[in-house]
């Protein structure tokens, strides 16, 4: 290996040609076959029982996420103009290619079922827009008396009315969103129109996140370039270090394209990982060269390149292999995009390794050594600071251990509080239109988010039984006691309403009918006289299943979990009646999905720690090396989760993956440092001298690495998109803790265990 790499340095141009030929091939693959996967459903593990069930239930009951359009008239909506707009907009939405006419609900489409002593009356609230005061007043009274509509389609204060248009899966696009915005804009004044709903939130996010990234990434790269140039003090070295990162990213995406695997949202984390991990190789290799140049002035470029390889090939290979294995452990995840993320990042890390070992020495040979530095012994360099720091650590070993223990314990406590938030809404700025509109509608109506509770029995007609229906009704009542649940809607509502209407609107009969026969006959009556399409959203064809929709004030995991908590209390009661309780809907799927990711992330983190312990033990031929080597990773992971837990910052699907960086970067630092420590210990046989050497050599390079990446990613704190800000903070934080963990507690443990100093 070593010999082969050294032999390559005699043919630098051949190396360039081969590398660029391979890169060109991958570039062609990227150009020809790259596909973004934006369909969120594609992320879900299709064979997971919760997803299978939810998808089925969505089909049984035609459960789709809806766009919500709110029309506000501050003087009240009961006037000819506003009602005309409701009618006009309802009809226009129904004509849209992506919207089924029957999936649009508004005051114009709703049926008003009323009862009298001798009969029942089913009619539209209006079909010709009312004009006279008398007609308008009749409409107002009709809505007030109908609690299937009041509070659902018209706000209690009568200033806002809703139009809900359900969209088929994946129908949402940016063009569609703009069409809807244009459409509603045409209806503005004096009414104000608002557009909300999950499709809007999801769609806007899918559009905003990459757009923001596109703007931020060049700035990140620019800062990294500048800082890297300052640290390496050589344009040539900077160029080749960056070239390694860029080409390894290109190779990774090229391989992905070549294999026909689409780019998922989490795949956008791959370049982030490769930047953070990839620059390390270059910094360490050039760092070694710099020190060699200083120690032996006047070396030739060929000698320099050979020394780079001789001194660094082993740690570079070791760090890369362990990092790659760490990422490959993500294969245990249930989520395909994350499996791909793990495998391709691992490939990228290996590509970066090969490129670092091949391209950088070739660059030195072809373009000469980096500008020989003026030796300024008086001035304290970064290496001296590192040495001083190392000595300080040695002096205050006890303090370091105490602080480390306190930090880990506090973080571990914090980490238990960590929760993952599947909310889409909370990814937006608090004062963004999307959040404000959502809050506006939530304040006046049941809620913009939904949770579908699916009751499922093996017996046909189970949903006609009064005991089942009463329990269903009770469950709805209990759920609505939560602040987070604004409203609920199900079969029980229809039956209570018909029962009351059939008893001349006597409120005493606003209850579940007494017998299953009466339920069956009411349902038949509703089928005959009402709008059965709406009914079929609450009960299936054979009355074995029912769908209760809870309207939630938020789409975050805490809100959904609180609602589920209430429903779970009813689960045993339903089971006694032979009815199973399940959940469905996109909010629920996101929740399960997030839990899967977090669980998978923790699992794969533990697995990768285990594998890394074994690998390091083999590489350094002692188990203590393995155990000590994972200290930086462990500390980084615990602290990073702990800080989020303590600050009550929820994890999201993408940021949860950042903990992978703890593995990638933490292992690099530990291995480089340990390897240098081993070499120095062998040479000097003295603890202080070994620490000084390791700090001067590796400590310095680690610090540079951390500074470069932290500087780059801190730029993301100025991103317009909150999740990208979190990403910047997390990457920077992880780098910093990895650095600190390596040069403090790991050093202390190495010294205390007398590693490499035992006879």
């Amino acid at each position: 290996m070593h010999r082969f790499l050294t032999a390559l340095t005699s043919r630098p141009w051949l190396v360039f040609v081969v590398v660029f030929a391979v890169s060109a091939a991958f570039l062609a693959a990227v150009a020809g076959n790259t596909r973004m996967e934006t369909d969120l459903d594609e992320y879900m593990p299709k064979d997971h029982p919760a997803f299978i069930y939810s998808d089925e239930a969505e089909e049984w009951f035609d459960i789709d996420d809806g766009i919500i359009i709110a029309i506000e008239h501050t003087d009240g909506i009961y006037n000819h103009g506003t009602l005309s707009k409701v009618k006009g907009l309802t009809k226009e939405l129904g004509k849209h290619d992506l919207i089924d006419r029957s999936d649009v609900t508004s005051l114009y489409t709703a049926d008003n079922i009323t009862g009298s002593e001798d009969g029942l009356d089913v009619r539209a609230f209006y079909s010709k827009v009312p004009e006279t005061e008398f007609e308008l007043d009749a409409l107002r009274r009709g809505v007030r008396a109908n609690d299937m509509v009041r509070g659902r389609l018209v706000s209690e204060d009568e200033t806002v009315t809703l139009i809900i248009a359900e969209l088929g899966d994946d129908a949402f696009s940016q063009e569609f969103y703009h069409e809807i915005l244009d459409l509603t804009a045409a209806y503005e004044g004096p009414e104000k129109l608002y557009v909300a709903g999950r499709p809007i939130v999801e769609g806007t996010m899918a559009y905003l996140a990459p757009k923001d990234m596109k703007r931020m990434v060049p700035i990140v790269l620019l800062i990294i370039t500048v800082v890297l140039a300052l640290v390496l003090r050589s344009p040539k070295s900077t160029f080749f270090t960056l070239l390694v990162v860029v080409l390894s990213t290109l190779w990774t995406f090229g391989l992905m394209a070549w294999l026909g695997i689409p780019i998922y949202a989490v795949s956008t984390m791959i370049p982030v990982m490769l930047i953070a991990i990839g620059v390390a190789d270059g910094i360490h290799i050039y760092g070694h060269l710099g020190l060699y140049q200083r120690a032996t002035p006047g070396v030739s470029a060929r000698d320099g390149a050979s020394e780079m390889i001789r001194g660094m090939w082993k740690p570079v290979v070791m760090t890369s292999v362990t990092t790659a294995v760490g990422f490959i452990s993500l294969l245990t995840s249930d989520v395909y995009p994350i499996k791909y993320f793990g495998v391709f990042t691992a490939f990228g890390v290996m590509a970066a390794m090969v490129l670092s070992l091949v391209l950088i020495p070739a660059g030195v040979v072809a373009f000469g050594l980096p500008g020989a530095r003026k030796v300024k012994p008086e001035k304290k360099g970064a290496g001296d600071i590192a040495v001083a720091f190392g000595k300080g650590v040695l002096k205050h070993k006890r303090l370091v251990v105490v602080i480390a223990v306190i930090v880990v314990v506090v973080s571990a406590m914090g980490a238990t509080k960590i929760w993952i938030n599947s909310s889409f809404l909370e990814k937006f700025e608090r004062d963004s239109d999307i959040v404000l509109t959502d809050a506006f509608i939530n304040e006046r109506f049941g809620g913009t988010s939904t949770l579908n509770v699916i009751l499922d029995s093996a017996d046909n007609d189970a949903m006609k039984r009064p005991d089942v229906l009463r329990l269903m009704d009770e469950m709805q009542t209990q759920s609505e006691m939560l602040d987070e649940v604004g409203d609920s809607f199900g079969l029980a509502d229809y039956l209570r309403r018909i029962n009351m209407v059939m008893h001349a609107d006597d409120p005493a009969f606003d209850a579940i009918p007494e017998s299953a026969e009466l339920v069956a006959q009411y349902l038949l009556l509703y089928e005959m006289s009402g709008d059965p399409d709406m009914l079929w959203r609450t009960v299936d064809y054979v009355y074995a299943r029912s769908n209760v929709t809870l309207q939630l004030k938020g789409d975050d995991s805490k809100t959904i979990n609180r609602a589920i908590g209430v429903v779970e209390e009813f689960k045993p009661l339903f089971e006694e009646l032979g009815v199973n309780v399940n959940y469905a809907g996109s909010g629920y799927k996101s929740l399960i999905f997030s839990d899967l990711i977090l669980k998978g992330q923790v699992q794969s983190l533990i697995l990768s720690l285990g594998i890394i312990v074994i690998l390091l033990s083999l590489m350094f031929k002692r188990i203590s090396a393995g155990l000590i080597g994972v200290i930086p990773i462990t500390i980084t992971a615990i602290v990073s989760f702990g800080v989020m837990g303590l600050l009550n910052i929820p994890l999201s699907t993408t940021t949860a993956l950042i903990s992978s960086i703890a593995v990638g970067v933490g292992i690099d630092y530990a291995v480089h440092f340990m390897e240098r420590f081993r070499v120095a210990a062998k040479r000097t046989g003295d603890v202080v001298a070994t620490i000084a050497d390791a700090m001067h050599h590796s400590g310095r390079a680690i610090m540079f690495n951390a500074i470069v990446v932290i500087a780059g990613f801190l730029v993301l704190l100025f991103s317009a998109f909150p999740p990208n800000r979190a990403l910047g903070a997390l990457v920077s934080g992880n780098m910093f803790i990895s650095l600190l963990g390596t040069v403090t507690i790991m050093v202390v443990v190495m010294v205390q265990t007398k590693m490499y100093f035992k006879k």
Partner: protein
Amino acid sequence: MKKTFALAVLVLVMAAGSVLAEEPSGLDVVAEEPSGLELIENAYNRPDGEDMQSKLTMTLMNSRGDTRVREIRQFMKDFGDVEKSVMFFESPADIRNTSFMNWSYTTVGKDDDQWIFLPALKKVKRISSDSKGDYFMGSDFTYDDLGDRHPSSDTHTVLSRENVNDEPCYVVESVPVEEEYIYGRTISWIVEDKWVVVKKDFYDEDDELLKTLTVDEYGEIDGYWVVMHSTMHHVQRDHTTIMALDDIQLDTGIPENKFTERMMTRGL
């Protein structure tokens, strides 16, 4: 013979029309052809007896293939200005003896009167509904589809003549006079001389196919042409209703008091 001649003339005129594309087609030549309105009126007024009773089996089927079967005993009688019908559910068991009565008036614009009796409630209730486009008992048929829509509600145009199941049919397009109707237009295939609509396509307001009606079986009973088996497929919802009539008895002299609230409560 006369028909054949008319047809020959029609074919000739159409051929001439296509040759002399500029010439307005000589509609006056085919004046003997019945107009669209006449054809629809023929179908609407087709004699079907004074009264009729039968067993109706209504099968509803959703896109997943789940079915709901309802067995109904129905009675109908024509009183000239009003047609009264009453139906009793026989199965499923939990709706047995639920009955439904409908009085449909020939006077244009006069809404039907409807009553329902729920045995579990032991009460007859009147149903008033503003929408003639309502679906009949959860099926894919609206009341209008079942023959309730007066010919004057639409403007009718003869499109062509086609054979359906080897029987010569007129193809007539009907466009509603009023706006705001559930159909943008319908196309009916009416069997010549029998005046039975054997096929009908329904288009929505956007002119997209909404439903298709197929008559699977019709026949002559006591000199009247009666549809016995028909299928309505709601294309957009992928939902199907099959209506099958058995044990059809015509002109048995059903007493007028069969169509009263009191009789509704009696059951079968």
